[in-house]
């Protein structure tokens, strides 16, 4: 992951000009970018605009004090991960403990010892960086698992495309030889029914199974015999290959022609061109879907303004990526209610669905039923993801959202998946619930529809 430009910037929050001067000088000399806020209020105002890599926070200040500033920063999902080091002249142990309990990572006692301050700052910056790297590695590991599956997802439509191209090429070769000779021998009525037949084949989008094709051939043979046409067997054979289930009256002029079998054979070759062209189109659509799903997955790191999006689309994106692992042993039930669009960060929500669905698949050991439902309740969009897997034991249930908590073997997961899920849902002012018994686990995500009101509330409070 690219380091953000403000990675090594430090925000000093202090009301005493002397302290500020000393710290600015010290930190600048050590190569840090430094910003200053003269009160807790000012700090809260500035941080969303330019997120610092670390905050040095004085405790005793006019207005809101350091503890309150810290509390508000920790309450906001956007700022809660910024490491905070408290500073105060107080040497009282109680204050040190209170600071650490409020979520501070460390404590510096004034007067500040330069070398110690720099050493502590460096420790916490590199810890934060290591944590970011782990989150990123978790994402890359999940992506790695998918690559093999994606190869299949893309090779399948490619295979269809390649086969269809070879079919079109040989059919065209054959028809180009026959058609110029054949067409002038047809009367205007026969020509009309020739092209009518091709139109019909192009518009009928069904592909018959072999059995249906054989049944159709029997029926056709009977009908052709009823019309007392010659070569009913050959005609029925070609017509059934073309999947002609429509009434035969419109193509009767054609069927009555002396060389009807040859004419139909040419029509059949042209129908191969039509069908295989449509096949290519379908395969391209399929491959495009896979590529789109991938793009959505990778883009999730981009920070952007919330937009209106359909929640179900994000869920479907994940199902497309996982199609391979799902289709082999998992029955997917999708019950989507008709819902308004949600103001949200769609790429991040995709990551929520991605983690929940991938956990569900693993919990079921790739066999079982995955039931996904969306609904609207109490001005929230509720997404419910249920699996028939082994379940989560009560002892573990309380801990699953903790960072680095995992039940997976070493190397299979970092234990960050659900903690990332939790952070993203908090950012949407939502909540997540889990119910689990062996054989039935449900994760329920509540996302409020009044996101913008809650968001402006939060900003006002700060």
């Amino acid at each position, binding site marked *: 992951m690219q380091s953000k430009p403000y990675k090594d910037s430090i925000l000093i929050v202090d009301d005493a000009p002397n302290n500020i001067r000393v710290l600015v000088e010290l930190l600048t000399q050590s190569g840090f970018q430094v910003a200053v806020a003269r009160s807790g209020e000012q700090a809260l105002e500035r941080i969303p605009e330019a997120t610092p890599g670390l905050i040095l926070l004085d405790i005793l200040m006019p207005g809101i004090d350091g503890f309150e500033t810290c509390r508000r920063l920790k309450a906001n999902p956007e700022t809660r991960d910024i490491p905070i080091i408290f500073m105060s002249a107080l040497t009282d142990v109680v204050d040190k403990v209170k600071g650490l309990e409020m979520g501070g990572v460390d404590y510096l006692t004034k007067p500040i010892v330069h070398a110690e301050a720099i050493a502590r700052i460096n420790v916490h910056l590199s810890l934060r960086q290591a944590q970011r790297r782990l989150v990123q590695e978790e994402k890359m590991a999940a992506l790695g698992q998918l690559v*093999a*599956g994606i*190869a*299949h*997802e*893309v*090779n*399948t*439509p*490619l*295979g*269809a*495309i*390649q*086969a*269809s191209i*070879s*079919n079109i090429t*040989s059919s065209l070769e054959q028809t180009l030889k026959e058609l110029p000779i054949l067409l002038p021998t047809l009367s205007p009525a026969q020509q009309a029914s020739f092209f009518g037949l091709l139109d019909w084949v192009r518009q009928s989008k069904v*592909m018959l*199974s*072999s*059995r249906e094709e054989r049944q159709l051939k029997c029926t056709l043979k009977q009908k052709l015999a009823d019309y007392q046409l010659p070569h009913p*067997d*050959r005609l029925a*054979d070609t017509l059934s*290959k073309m999947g002609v289930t429509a009434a035969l009256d419109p193509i009767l002029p054609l069927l009555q022609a002396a060389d009807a079998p040859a004419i139909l054979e040419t029509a059949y070759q042209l129908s*191969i061109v039509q*069908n*295989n062209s449509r*096949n290519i189109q*379908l*395969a391209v659509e*399929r491959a495009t879907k896979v590529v789109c799903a991938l793009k959505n997955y990778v883009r999730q790191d981009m920070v952007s303004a919330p937009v209106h999006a359909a929640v179900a689309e994000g869920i479907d994106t994940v199902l497309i990526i996982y199609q*391979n692992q799902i*289709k*082999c*042993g998992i029955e997917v039930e999708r019950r989507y209610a008709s819902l308004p669009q949600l103001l949200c960060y769609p790429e991040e929500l995709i990551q929520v669905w991605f983690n929940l669905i991938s956990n569900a698949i693993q919990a079921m050991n790739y066999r079982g039923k995955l039931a996904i439902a969306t609904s609207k309740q109490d001005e929230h969009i509720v997404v419910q993801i249920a699996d028939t897997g082994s379940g989560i034991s009560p002892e573990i249930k309380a801990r699953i959202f903790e960072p680095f908590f995992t039940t997976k073997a070493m190397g299979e997961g970092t234990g960050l998946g659900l903690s990332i899920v939790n952070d993203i849902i908090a950012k949407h002012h939502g909540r997540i619930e889990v119910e689990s018994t062996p054989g039935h686990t449900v994760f329920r995500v509540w996302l409020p529809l009044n996101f913008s009101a809650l968001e402006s509330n939060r900003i006002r409070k700060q």
Partner: protein
Amino acid sequence: MGVSNKAILCVDDERTVLLGLRDQIAKHFGDRYRYEIAESVNEAWEVIDELDQDGVRILIIVSDWLMPGTRGDEFLIQIHQRFPSIVTVLLTGHADETAIERARQYANLHAYIAKPWSEETLIDVIRSGLGKLDDESSDCLCG
């Protein structure tokens, strides 16, 4: 063109692949053999039973690997147990080495074709598979 009593069966859960395969096989073998398609292993078994009842002999099965329910290698192993003379071919977009090895060992896999495939490869594989059958049946006659 009488109805042949020998058939080639293709199994793939992707219709676009089946359509491509069907037309390729029809083009090269359609005048001598029946060609059958099935969208799932279940459907394939139905087709097999039905053909069996009609006295049609399946010579060769070309199967996808990653399909709902049963995977291609398992399917071909089951086929081999019931109909040891049927020639088996795997056609897939993603090769799981152990699955291919299993199919080689327990389904007497004739060939593995990777997607995307060329028409030439597919036709060569089917032709050589059919050739193998001819050899065996002549062996039988001699023996």
